[in-house]
């Protein structure tokens, strides 16, 4: 079943076109990455899916229902970990549930333990490292009642080692819970390692350039990063992305 369906979405501010002809789907339990240069209107897209900005034209369906301009249907994880600094880890994790109405502290404790943050339940965000904050932010989304999670470059502020750790940490937890994820990144390797499908965006006005379905089986291991097949895909996507640049240069 197609969970998220986006039809001919466009957004312009005045005469400035930010997004046009965006159509794609995210199936139930699927991990889809959006790969594109920075400033390619990805945050605008997320704001439209999240219902805080209305599209200029086009429709967004979630489970068959039109959710244009409607809030509360997705769980969003911004680029910065965005934890409430006056709440402990545990209280932050249940925030999404609290907004929806009921919290399950038992489950939250279990999730925190599963995420490797045992003993930090009562810690405040300023006592955590960047990677730990992102983990808390991610399990907050996992605990939220919404079945679609939007991740907006969640690892971009982390160093390379932490980033690799986080990717490996994220996959098993996601596989257990089978929520759909729409993931924005500008890191090709990250997109390849994590996703079922990759959608490549062009820069302004943003359109979909190409879509790739990846053949790598799950559960995934870090070893695939060095296989020939992985490198072949990396080249393919790199060419798709950089074609954009040469086009722009010739203009």
């Amino acid at each position, binding site marked *: 079943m197609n969970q998220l369906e986006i039809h001919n979405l466009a957004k312009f501010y005045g005469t400035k076109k930010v997004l046009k002809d965006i159509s794609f789907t995210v199936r139930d339990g699927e991990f889809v990455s959006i790969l594109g240069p920075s400033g390619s209107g990805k945050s605008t897209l997320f*704001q439209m899916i*999240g*219902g*805080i900005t209305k599209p200029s034209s086009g429709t967004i369906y979630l489970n068959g229902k039109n959710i244009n301009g409607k*809030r*509360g*249907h*997705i*769980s*969003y*994880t*911004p*680029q*910065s970990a*965005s934890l*409430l*600094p*006056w709440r402990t880890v545990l209280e932050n994790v249940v*925030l*999404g549930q*609290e*907004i*929806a109405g009921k919290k399950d502290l038992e489950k939250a404790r279990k999730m925190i333990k599963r995420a490797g943050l045992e003993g930090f339940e009562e810690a*405040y*965000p*300023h*006592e955590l*490292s*960047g990677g730990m*904050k992102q983990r808390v932010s991610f399990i907050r989304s996992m605990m*939220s009642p*919404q079945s679609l999670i*939007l991740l907006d470059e969640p690892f971009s*502020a982390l160093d390379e080692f932490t980033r690799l750790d986080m990717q490996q940490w994220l996959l098993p937890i996601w596989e257990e819970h089978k929520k759909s994820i729409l993931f924005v990144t500008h890191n090709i390797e990250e997109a390849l390692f994590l996703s079922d499908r990759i959608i490549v965006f062009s820069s302004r006005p943003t359109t979909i350039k190409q879509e790739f379905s990846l053949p790598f089986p799950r559960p995934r291991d870090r070893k695939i990063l060095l296989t020939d097949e992985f490198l072949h895909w990396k080249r393919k996507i790199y060419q798709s992305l950089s074609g954009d640049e040469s086009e722009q240069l010739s203009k």
Partner: protein
Amino acid sequence: MNVVLKGWRPILVLILLIIAWEISCRLFNIPGWLLPAPTEIVQEMVSGWSNYNGHLLATIKLIIIGFLIGSSVGIFIAVCLHLVPFLRQAFYPILIISQNIPIIVLAPLLVIWFGFGMLPKIIVITLVCFFPITVSLLDGFRQTDRDLLHYMQMAGATKRQIFWKLEWPYALPSLFSGLKISATYSVMGAVISEWLGASKGIGVYMTLASSSFRTDRVFVAIMVIIILSLLFFLFILFLEKRIIRWKTGEEGNAYESA
């Protein structure tokens, strides 16, 4: 401990100034009604305690009542202006104009309208108190983190949830900077309001002292006002430290800015 270590320079300057004052008073034989020496002031402060403790209590009571009412009004106005954009546009400029009217000019009018009772005095304190609180709290609301706001909105939070779970706690540090300013202002406001006409209070004590050329007592009043302001300020600081525990060490966190 840290405060004492860091604060030794201003304390040293203060002590030197007082010593210079004391020496020049003695050296030039300045009469007490013109400028009393610091030792004379301290002496009067100790021996005259029974003369002014009643005044002191009355002023403290007035400060506390005035500050509580003034800050409640300040918080109430800030919340209203924040939640209703129309009110904000309509009233914010008027608020600023209200601060350009000197309290000293307004005070006699308040006496004409409301008499010599408690009410005009509380109005004066409220007028000096509410503004710093309203302005800083409004600023705090406005600076609410955009990412967090988007997160809450997309998760379907109601306006009420956003206010109580995000905006209010986020603005608390700003509220406290407003409260700290207002705390010291309220002491000043109380003394000014007592000049209008009151039977008791440090303001009254001061007027009586200056009209009878008891300059030493005027200085005692000044000292008392300084001490009161400081104590009040420290009390708010203490409350802030107790309530806003999450702030500690945030600036030192390298990940925060990344």
